């Protein structure tokens, strides 16, 4: 697995770190500020596209991802690449957004020191949010919500149906109040409703039609009565007019001979002739009458004849008016007869229906058989009897109105009852849906809770086992994660502690115990979800664990790492580094990486191992020029070797190593010299290719020589330069350097590696196929 960073947080130029995934675990040691969290952030950035540790920090509103960019570089320069199991993912920034290319089959889970106890200290609701991915079955959550929504919606629907029923009942009560005959029904609304609905809709419609027809015919009779009434005097007047005009014409004709009519034509022609000429002679009798007299006479004759003609025309007109009046009257009579016939018909139908007590029609109506029977005398008789039709008209109108009300009432009652029935039927269906929906929801809910609690019980059992592996005999097995029995999305975390029930571990356990608890819970949870595809990064998460529990925790992590694709533990804790580095803790399936000090110029770096420092020391001794560097490199190599020796023999070192949290050469010196039995027995055997001991080196003289020269390192190789004037710097530095190399050559193999293995069970020997160094004793002599 390889992680490459560029322009990312403290990394300016490219920094590449490889993790040996053949090992289960990588211990990434680095002092504060060396870039451990930068590496975990880079993992989260490239895998999840998040800002890692910056996600939960306040950045005063600045975009989090933008803050990942190295201070000297631009957003576009940032690039993080991760290679895992032949898959590659590259993440860059485009503006303030992450651009990820490539696919990965693995996920990253980071647990930081800051977050280690969060799961424990969270409120139950927030704790549930953090663990819900492990315990939730989203499809059940969704369907439970869906059923809940359905039930709520149907409950609202049921309320609406109930309101509809109430409203319909109010309408019925109001109709009953307004229309029911109290004398007949009293307070019995249902009996009234039955009565209203007793009559069929068809019967009411038929009766309504009969009355409507009867009413209509009476109205038509009334409407046509006046025109017919007026037609009789009109005829009489027209007859009189004809008689009068004929008499006048007869008189005129008697006064003038019939031939005047013919003369009229002749005179007209004469008139024309006279007007056209100046002759004084009559064109008919040739009498000299004078032209003007002749004209005058002709005009008089024509005037007389015109009066006859006009009277004749008036007579003709009078006759035509009479004829017209007769025709009109005939039309009226026919129409009136039609009305009478229809009236008789519908009246008979009404009488036959036996629904009403209707007065009979008047005799004048009953006797008429054809239109011509409607004479003036008949009409006079009808006029006399007309008042007798009024009761019929009133009854019909009254019954018609009553029936109209009844019909409307029946429709209203029927509609209200139908509404009640429909709403009641719908209500039954809705109640079923609500009841069944709630029952199904409970099945889903119970299964969701059962599954979650079963999962949580398994997790609880697992983390309790993990915790017990570190804190033997503390019996926190009763501490459990479980869902609150009634509150939704609430994860409780408590149990019996020191005899107190439902005790919160937060209140009873120390901070380091809570850290361990949090770590175990985290491991137990992450083991649930495809751990083989998970890379765990414990970022300085075990800093608070004391030394007494360190080895057990380490062993636990090593065991648990086998479940995951790879586990990385970053730490600034010196004892951990010490124990890993020098084999006090097993190195089986473990890779140890150390970060060097970070600087703005250099960025992140991996610290070089002791063998490379030895190579540097040889180089500087050979050059014999730089006393300070020789002293400084000697100091570094000695620190590593003495650190190793004091480590494997468990020498007593100060509890508090000082402000820098690291032991000095004097501390190591004191540690070794304090073990008198050890110093005298320390020896290293050199083994040849045939496996024989070629040389035995006692270490005590070499160490004593070195111890006597340590002040040189302090005087030349570090900052106490004021002492340097008292030394022959280069000679003293070379002496220290050579003493150091003598110790190296006595202990280290050809590759300058220390004998940090003890597989043969009797010595510390070097790694590799052939053993060339054996350091004795295996254990510190008592």
């Amino acid at each position: 697995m390889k992680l490459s960073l560029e322009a990312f947080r403290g990394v300016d130029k490219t920094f590449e770190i490889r993790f040996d995934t053949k090992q289960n675990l990588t211990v990434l040691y680095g002092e504060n500020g060396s870039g451990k969290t930068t590496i975990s952030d880079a993992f989260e950035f490239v895998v999840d596209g998040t800002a890692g540790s910056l996600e939960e920090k306040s950045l005063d509103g600045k975009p989090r991802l933008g803050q990942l960019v190295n201070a000297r570089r631009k957003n576009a320069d940032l690039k993080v690449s991760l290679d895992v199991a032949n898959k590659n993912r590259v993440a860059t920034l485009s503006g303030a957004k992450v651009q990820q290319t490539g696919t990965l089959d693995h996920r990253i889970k980071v647990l930081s020191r800051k977050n280690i106890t969060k799961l424990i200290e969270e409120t139950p609701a927030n704790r549930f949010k953090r663990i819900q991915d492990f315990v939730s079955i989203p499809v059940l959550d969704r369907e439970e919500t869906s059923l809940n929504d359905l039930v709520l919606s149907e409950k609202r629907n049921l309320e609406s149906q109930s309101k509809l029923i109430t409203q319909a009942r109010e309408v019925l009560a109001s109709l009953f109040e307004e229309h029911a005959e109290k004398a007949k029904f009293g307070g019995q609304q249902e009996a009234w409703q039955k009565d209203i609905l007793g009559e069929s809709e068809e019967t009411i419609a038929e009766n309504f039609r009969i009355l409507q027809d009867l009413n209509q015919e009476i109205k038509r009779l009334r409407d046509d009565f006046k025109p017919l009434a007026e037609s009789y005097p009109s005829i009489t007047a027209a007859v009189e007019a004809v008689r009068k005009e004929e008499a006048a014409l007869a008189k005129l004709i008697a006064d003038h001979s019939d031939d005047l009519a013919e003369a009229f034509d002749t005179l007209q022609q004469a008139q024309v002739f006279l007007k056209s000429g100046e002759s004084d002679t009559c064109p008919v009798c040739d009498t000299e009458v004078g032209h003007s007299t002749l004209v005058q006479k002709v005009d008089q004759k024509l005037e007389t004849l015109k009066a006859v003609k006009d009277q004749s025309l008036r007579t003709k007109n009078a006759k035509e008016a009479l004829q017209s009046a007769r025709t009109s009257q005939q039309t009226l009579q026919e129409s009136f007869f039609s009305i009478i016939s229809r009236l008789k018909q519908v009246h008979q139908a009404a009488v036959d229906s036996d629904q009403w007590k209707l007065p009979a029609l008047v005799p004048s109506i009953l006797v008429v058989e054809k239109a011509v029977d409607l004479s003036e005398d008949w009409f006079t008789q009808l006029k006399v009897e007309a008042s007798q039709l009024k009761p019929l008209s009133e009854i019909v109108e009254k019954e018609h109105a009553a029936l109209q009300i009844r019909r409307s009432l029946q429709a209203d009652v029927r509609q209200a009852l139908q509404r009640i029935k429909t709403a009641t039927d719908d209500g039954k269906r809705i109640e079923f849906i609500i009841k069944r929906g709630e029952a199904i929801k409970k099945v889903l809910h119970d299964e969701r809770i059962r599954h979650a609690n079963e999962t949580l019980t398994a997790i609880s059992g697992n983390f309790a086992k993990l915790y017990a592996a570190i804190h033997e005999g503390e019996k926190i097995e009763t501490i459990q994660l479980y869902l609150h029995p009634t509150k939704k999305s609430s994860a409780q975390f408590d149990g019996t502690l020191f005899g107190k029930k439902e005790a919160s571990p937060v209140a009873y356990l120390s901070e380091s115990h809570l850290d361990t608890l949090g770590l175990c819970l985290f491991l137990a949870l992450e083991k649930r979800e495809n751990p083989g595809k998970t890379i765990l990064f414990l970022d300085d998460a075990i800093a608070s664990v004391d030394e007494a529990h360190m080895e057990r925790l380490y062993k636990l992590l090593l065991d648990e790492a086998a479940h995951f694709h790879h586990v990385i533990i970053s730490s600034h804790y010196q004892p951990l580094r010490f124990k890993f580095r020098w084999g006090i803790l097993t190195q089986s399936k473990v890779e140890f990486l150390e970060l060097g000090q970070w600087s703005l110029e250099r960025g992140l770096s991996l610290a070089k191992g002791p063998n490379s420092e030895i190579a540097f020391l040889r180089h500087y001794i050979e050059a014999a020029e730089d006393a300070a560097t020789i002293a400084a490199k000697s100091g570094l190599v000695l620190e590593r070797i003495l650190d190793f020796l004091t480590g494997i023999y468990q020498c007593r070192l100060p509890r508090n190593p000082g402000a820098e949290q690291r032991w000095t050469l004097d501390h190591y010196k004191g540690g070794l010299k304090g073990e008198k039995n050890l110093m005298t027995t320390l020896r290293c055997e050199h083994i040849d290719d045939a496996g024989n001991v070629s040389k035995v080196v006692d270490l005590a003289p070499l160490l004593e020589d070195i111890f006597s020269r340590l002040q040189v390192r302090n005087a030349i190789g570090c900052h106490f330069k004021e002492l340097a004037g008292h030394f022959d710097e280069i000679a003293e530095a070379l002496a220290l350097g050579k003493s150091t190399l003598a110790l190296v050559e006595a202990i280290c193999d050809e590759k300058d590696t220390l004998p940090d293995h003890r597989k043969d069970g009797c010595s510390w020997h070097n790694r590799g196929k052939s053993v060339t160094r054996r350091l004795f004793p295996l254990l510190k002599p008592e």
Partner: protein
Amino acid sequence: MTLPKESAEKLRDGLISQSLLANKAAEEVIKSLVMEKQVNWNLVISKQFESEQGGSDEAQP
């Protein structure tokens, strides 16, 4: 997390043993849950209502 097999079985048993849904309807619901399809509960329960109102359940074997 998809619906675990054990949960699917327990849900089916719960729905059928409590006579909440007919066998066929319960099977269809579980199938939808397994395939993570949305269940139309209104339709499922309304059909169950009609079936129970009708007095006979055609879905029952």
